[in-house]
């Protein structure tokens, strides 16, 4: 493996071997089937929406209420994207261009919020900063009897900002790392001051990556269910969940709202894809560059350290400290029994299973687009990404509709839950699997076949082992996301099946906070542990491009 990856990638894309068609035909069927299944929730929702739109409920649905939901969702999404950028730009700059003490540690701490599920983070924020929370308790001696309202927009905005800003941090950091210092130096030599250089040179160079990060954060915010529910702020996901729980026309309303949400999410997603594919080209053509010079912070060092400490205290320290402070508290007799081995087994089991199944399912799609990039295979590859834009609650709802009417044998069973996870998270491993396969020199596979191996054997013995780290990174990412996922688990779990996510949610629902502490800490630890392989194995990520997250 002495070839530079970029050269290999071009080979993979350009050279076609007609004899591969033997392998391609059955594989193509499999890939087509995989993508068809992935498209099912979207297609079925559209199909089902006919009933709603044809019915007399439609006037009722198009009320001020729906407009308010759309307004709330857009407002929250935009606010979170902006505040996440305001946090991420300085943090990214400090960890790449400055002599901030402990740069690497701050970076790791800055990525840790990814290990905190938004609902758990939001619960801890209400316990810490709520009207009668931990902070108020500390301030009581100073005469503070009540803190400002956290429920509603402010709480949803705060928690989503704190737990999603790494989605901006990663691409922005990558942009800083890839930035050629020559332009800034030239501007300086022409007499521009730092501020002017930032706005005229640095920021424009940053903009595409920033846009990608903001759109990723927006997508996350739009599909978040836990934090907005805890903070009682009505966005699409919360409204869909409530309407889903109402008899009569509730399900129709939920389907209708899901459809609008799907349209909104898909447009954000397509926009993100567009910008990031341009970004990819932009990076490929820029040639060799020198590393940037480290800026001496001087007395600004303390300000920078205060900033970093503040952000990390809110986003990492508060959740952990609050959970620990609730650890020893009294558990009421009526608390739900806490069976840690079963919860662990269930959580890790479904996450590992989904990761394995999704990796197997993505393989044909990713393989074909590399080895036989026909029009059809490229369309399949692009389509397979779409479900990632769909909020979990939308996929779950659609699968419930579908299975109760057409596939009752899997309704309320584990396979349906796995299908829901799989469809939602499969795209997460698609990109890294494709890139990993692309970096394998086709000649090795050819050599194996020249020595008499059948195509599948060559793929199994040569290509897959070489592409292993990229595929494993994708699987780790799926694993992490399944462990964190709440709405899909809540809606699709078989009767009596509980994971950490649903156990924590149910205990919160009953206001038994002491029962959240231990499972919450374990859940965060599990997520943090599964972040390690995500970053260690994905070469693209290691370079700092957070795209596949």
């Amino acid at each position, binding site marked *: 493996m002495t070839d530079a990856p970029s050269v290999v990638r071009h080979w993979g894309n350009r050279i076609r071997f007609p004899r591969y068609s033997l392998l391609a035909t059955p594989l193509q069927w499999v890939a087509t089937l995989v993508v068809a299944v992935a498209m099912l929730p979207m297609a079925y929702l559209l199909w089902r929406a006919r009933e709603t739109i044809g019915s007399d409920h439609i006037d*009722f649905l198009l*009320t*001020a*209420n729906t407009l*308010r*939901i759309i307004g709330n969702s857009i407002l929250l999404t935009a606010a979170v994207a902006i505040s996440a950028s305001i946090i991420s730009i300085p943090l990214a700059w400090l960890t790449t261009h400055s002599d901030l003490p402990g740069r690497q540690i701050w970076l790791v701490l800055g990525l840790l919020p990814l290990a905190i599920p938004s609902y758990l983070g939001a619960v801890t924020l209400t316990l810490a900063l*709520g*009207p*009668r929370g931990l902070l108020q308790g500390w301030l009581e001696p100073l005469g503070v009897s009540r803190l400002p309202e956290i*429920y509603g927009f402010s709480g949803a905005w705060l928690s989503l900002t704190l737990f999603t800003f790494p989605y901006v941090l990663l691409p922005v950091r990558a942009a800083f790392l890839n930035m050629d210092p020559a332009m800034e130096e030239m501007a300086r030599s022409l007499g521009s001051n730092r501020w002017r250089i930032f706005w005229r040179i640095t920021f424009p160079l940053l903009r595409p990556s920033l846009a990608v990060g903001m759109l990723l954060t927006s997508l996350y915010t739009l599909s978040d269910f836990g934090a907005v*529910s805890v903070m*009682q702020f*009505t966005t699409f996901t*919360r*409204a869909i969940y*409530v*309407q*889903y*729980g*109402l*008899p*009569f*026309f*509730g*399900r129709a*309303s939920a389907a209708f709202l899901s459809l609008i949400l799907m349209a909104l999410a898909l447009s954000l997603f397509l926009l993100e894809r567009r910008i990031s594919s341009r970004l990819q080209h932009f990076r490929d053509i820029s040639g060799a560059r020198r590393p940037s010079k480290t800026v001496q912070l001087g007395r600004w060092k303390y300000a920078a350290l205060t900033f970093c400490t503040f952000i990390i205290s809110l986003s990492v320290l508060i959740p952990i400290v609050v959970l620990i402070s609730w650890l020893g508290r*009294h558990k*009421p*007799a*009526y*608390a*739900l029994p806490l069976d840690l081995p079963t919860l662990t*087994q*269930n959580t890790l*089991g*479904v996450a*590992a*299973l989904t990761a*394995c*199944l999704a990796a197997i399912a993505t393989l044909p799609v990713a393989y074909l687009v590399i080895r036989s990039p026909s029009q059809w295979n490229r369309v399949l590859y692009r389509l397979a990404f779409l479900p990632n834009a769909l909020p979990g609650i939308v996929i779950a709802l659609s699968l*419930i*509709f579908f299975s*109760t009417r057409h596939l*009752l044998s899997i*309704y*309320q069973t*584990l396979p349906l839950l796995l299908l829901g996870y799989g469809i939602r998270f499969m795209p997460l491993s698609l990109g890294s699997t494709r890139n990993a396969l692309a970096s394998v020199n086709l000649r090795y596979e050819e050599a194996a076949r020249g020595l008499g191996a059948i195509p599948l054997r060559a793929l199994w013995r040569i290509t897959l082992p070489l592409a292993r780290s990229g595929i494993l990174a994708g699987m780790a990412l799926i694993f992490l996301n399944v462990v964190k996922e709440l709405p899909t688990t809540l809606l699709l779990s*078989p*009767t*009596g*099946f509980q994971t950490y996510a649903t156990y924590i949610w*149910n205990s919160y*629902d*009953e*206001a*038994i906070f002491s029962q959240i502490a231990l499972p919450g800490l374990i859940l965060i630890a599990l997520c943090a542990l599964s972040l390690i392989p995500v970053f260690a194995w994905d070469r693209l990520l290691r370079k700092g491009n957070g795209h596949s997250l």
Partner: protein
Amino acid sequence: MLVAGLLLSMISPNSAQEMSEPLVIYSGRSQSLVEPIFNRFSEDTGIPIEVRYAGTTELAATILEEGDASPADVFVAQDAGALGALAYAGRLAALPSDITERVEARFQSPAGLWIGLSGRARVLVYDTEQVTPDQLPASLLDLTGEEWRGRVGWAPTNASFQANVTAMRALWGEEVTETWLKDMIANDVRVYPKNTPIVQAAIDGEIAVGLVNHYYLYRFLAEDPSVTAALHYFPNGDAGTLVNIAGAAILNTSENQGLAQRFILYLLGAGAQTYFAEETYEYPLAGGVEPSVDLVSLAEIEVPDLDLSDLADLAGTVRLLTTVGALP
């Protein structure tokens, strides 16, 4: 694939011991409240059960969506409204007389389609540190006043609250109820997912008063007698002090009618009724069991002039709550 199969067998819920088909129960009552008595039924009778816990209204919606294919045998609901709605939709089986004769007629369906298992009163829980007894409102209608701005909690997704609104519509009429709901929202009423967090919020001082069922506070008191909250029963038959039931019904699509009846009979037996009286602090409705001494007796509560069958128009209530924006 081998690994996948192994994992699958590891996490699939009690696949090994599924000797006979379990009785499938959809429980709209909280797991923490009823799981112990459900498990006791299973232990005493050897009948395996499978319980799906969710909101009462959500499960009613699920049963309607599932149609004839519903896996549920029994529906345990936390109010009469959801049961009435399923009865109206023609989804419930008639209960035999050995069940219906155990409970007073006013606590069951007139057509014998559902039956009350325990009684509960709608009350106002209040934070005794913020509110003195003389400041308490005489009627739900008073809660829209300026002095209650941002200090009241409710749970519009909760079935018991929805039944309460159905009662208001029956007692006050549509217009007054709609105005009241709008005024409550304009008065910054605080939204909670269900009763327990409302009581917790009143104890914590997050709210001053909240619309809840009576028994939740007793569970908190049993844990810690020093909690600073108390219950207020509205006087003069106000819509705020409704007596409702938690009840059960058997789906007419169930192929387990016999076992389902045994389950309901068990819950009406002296053992289960004592559990409801002593453990969950509800009013027992059968078996000659007396309510806990801590409770205000049912006879003392000045209930409004309503039948539980008046609460069946859940559809109308849900529509109204959505129209005014109480439900998103």
